[in-house]
């Protein structure tokens, strides 16, 4: 492990070769901010930002009387903890602006490895018993708690979404509101879906016969690439609402809202391991997850058609449940298909008699 770290630190990969240094004026700039750059990423210790060939910003002195902002080290969220990638790798995340050779540098996100993906699956598997065994009422309250926590961090997420998706502040705020509301929608589903899709079957004989939906287990989720928070919440919430645990691969170029969501989940009574968030290359992480023998299902929403076909074929090895990518409108009524996709139907028979 130390070898990998040492090697990776030298060769930190870049997404945007021409990424500009992030501007900073005590707080991260929102889209359209005219804040003057007063700090630069080199000031951050340990993040590896200046390592190797990563673009280097020229330091500027902090003006007298101005406070130097504290930057966040974005980390993975695995098993309720916030590790860096075991590989030691990071990649540069820039905002969505494209002027002057690429977007503005925002952060160095962990470039998760296949090993991180496997670790996340182990954590997710470990969490299945407790989470699937929790009452639906309890799961509903926990999901509602996520909405509460997200609401409390509305400004932070609005800023991150604005940077990630190039939205104006007000539009980004509306996206966060929708994401909060989506948690509330799914919080309400936890103790209703069984009645809607399960029930008593009137068999032609003296038997009690009941069909009940049950979680399928560990679900790998390739989050949508185009909607860093609302899309992410829209695919993640139904997975855990139904009692599954998740390994989520965040949008490749816009992983920061997802990584921050990990912090929300960690403070929302969601047991560690129920949601695990990875950032990095979707293709690099999708392959081991699709082929993993201890993953029960995979959501390919964030995969390109070619990648999706390949991963679906790999998923056939242990007959994972697969949801193919398709056109999505994250503002539309979500329906129940993302709930039922991760549910098995168990039918129990028992004779009647006195």
């Amino acid at each position, binding site marked *: 492990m130390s070898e990998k770290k040492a090697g990776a630190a030298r060769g930190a990969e870049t997404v945007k070769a021409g990424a500009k240094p992030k501007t900073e004026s005590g707080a991260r700039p929102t889209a359209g901010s005219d804040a003057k750059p007063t700090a630069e990423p080199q000031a951050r210790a340990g993040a590896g930002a200046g390592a190797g060939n990563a673009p280097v910003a020229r330091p500027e002195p902090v003006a007298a009387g101005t406070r130097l902002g504290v930057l966040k080290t974005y980390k993975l969220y695995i098993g309720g903890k916030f590790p860096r990638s075991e590989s030691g790798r990071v990649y540069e995340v820039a905002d969505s602006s494209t002027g002057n050779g690429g977007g503005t540098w925002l952060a160095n996100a962990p470039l998760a490895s296949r090993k991180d993906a496997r670790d996340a699956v182990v954590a997710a598997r470990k969490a299945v018993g407790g989470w699937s065994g929790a009452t639906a009422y309890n799961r509903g309250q926990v999901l509602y708690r996520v909405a509460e926590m997200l609401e409390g961090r509305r400004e932070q997420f609005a800023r991150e979404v604005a940077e990630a998706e190039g939205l104006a502040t007000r539009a980004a705020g509306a996206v966060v509101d929708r994401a909060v509301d989506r948690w509330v929608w799914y919080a309400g589903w936890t103790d209703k879906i069984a009645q809607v899709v399960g029930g008593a079957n009137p068999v032609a004989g003296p038997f009690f*016969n009941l069909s009940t939906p049950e979680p399928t287990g560990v679900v790998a989720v390739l989050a949508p690439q185009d909607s860093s928070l609302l899309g992410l919440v829209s695919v993640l919430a139904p997975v855990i609402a139904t009692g599954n645990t998740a390994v989520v691969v965040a949008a490749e170029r816009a992983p920061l809202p997802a990584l921050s969501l990990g912090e929300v989940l960690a403070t929302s009574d969601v047991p560690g391991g129920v949601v695990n968030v990875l950032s990095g290359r979707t293709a690099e992480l999708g392959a081991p997850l699709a082929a993993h023998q201890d993953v029960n299902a995979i959501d390919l929403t964030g995969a390109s058609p070619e990648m999706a076909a390949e991963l679906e074929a790999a998923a056939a090895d*242990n007959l994972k449940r697969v949801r193919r990518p398709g056109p999505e409108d994250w503002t539309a009524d979500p329906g129940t298909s993302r709930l039922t996709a991760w549910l098995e139907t168990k039918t*129990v028979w028992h004779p009647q008699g006195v």
Partner: protein
Amino acid sequence: MSDSNQSTTQGAGRLFAYAPAPESRAIVDLAPSYGLFVDGEFTEAADGRVFTSVSPSSEEVLAEVARAGEADVDRAVAAARRAFGPWSALPGAERGKYLFRIARILQERSRELAVLESLDNGKPIRETRDVDLPLVAAHFFYYAGWADKLGYAVPGHPDPKPLGVAGQVIPWNFPLLMLAWKVAPALAAGNTVVLKPAETTPLSALFFADVCRQAGLPRGVVNILPGYGDAGAALVAHDGVDKVAFTGSTEVGKAIARSVAGTRKKVTLELGGKAANIVFDDAPVDQAVEGIVNGIFFNQGHVCCAGSRLLVQESVRDELLDALKRRMATLRVGDPLDKNTDVGAINSAEQLARITELAQAGEAEGAERWSPACELPSSGYWFAPTLFTGVTQAHRIAREEIFGPVLSVLTFRTPEEAVAKANNTPYGLSAGIWSEKGSRILAVAGRLRAGVVWANTFNKFDPTSPFGGYKESGHGREGGRHGLEAYLDV
């Protein structure tokens, strides 16, 4: 319930001697040869190939059957495509009436089809008469009633549409029943069908084609392509197919899942199993024994959901095994058309070889083999009901689907151990629980990773009851509202 120390197992079968009571096969009018059923007509295969279907109990050739190839798949899919527009445009109530007609004609011709199925498959007439055929008609009757109620089938989808052409591949263990599971919901939802029956049991599907004609079903709505795996593979991979439904081995199921990757095709797979039948120490022994016997020897063990792993609580192991052996000694193995027969013929020489090989592996790996004294007919394919004790979880006979009348017995001490052992398999189709304690049944049922759990019963089926597996036993459910959903674009 007699003295369990008494060694009566060997002779018990002869306490009652039955005179043979064969069902007459005169009710079935078998033609010397049968064609493919495409676009409402029986036709030869494009390349003229044929194969024969033999009776597994006598090795007698029953008929020659056209063998579908790729060109025939093209032709049948095209016919189904042409039929799809008008069929899906029919008011649901009218489509439903066709299905009701089919259900009624199946009931009328039930004895004929039961005898035919027994002849072609080798399963006992008592089973085709009392289980297969009643369920076949019931499936059509059940789904007929859905055809004009599709808006109530899937919550949130008030006007669901059919998918198009369904390509369906079915196995040989319940030929007509598997056809019913596939065809009835497909047609009710407004799809048209191309179905490939198994190569060893094509006849009942071809008789079903005649039932469709009698019902006046529009041409091309149901197409039947007898053939081998190559025809099935071509059907599943065909561009004109919108929906794939397969029942069969997990190995082939995985190949199908790979072949449809990246396509629009919706897929349901009903695959193999290695069900645990768990007997707790408080279970009523005689009932449990009946359930165990029904679980593994029903249909010669050619059942994907067969209770092939008996998990018995250690404290009642000896008592239960003694009773089970006594009961096994009374099983009558022989002529499928004899109404007294409990266990019929193995479906094919190939399947017999597979069962034989796995049973030998059981012995070679150190498990103890036992069968009751049992005279097997000299012609045909036969395998005596067999019990293995001293089986560990690592043995092949505890891990692999044998698909024959072979029971592997394991023991456990605590409910936790029972659940862990039951779930220790890549399969997850069915499971059984025997106990008098309701809370224990519900707790264990909740923890078993299986799509169907039979508590104090086994191998029960009903058109209203969803059936299908967890894990590598497949995707999706057949039966009930769930089975309909698999044929709707939702």
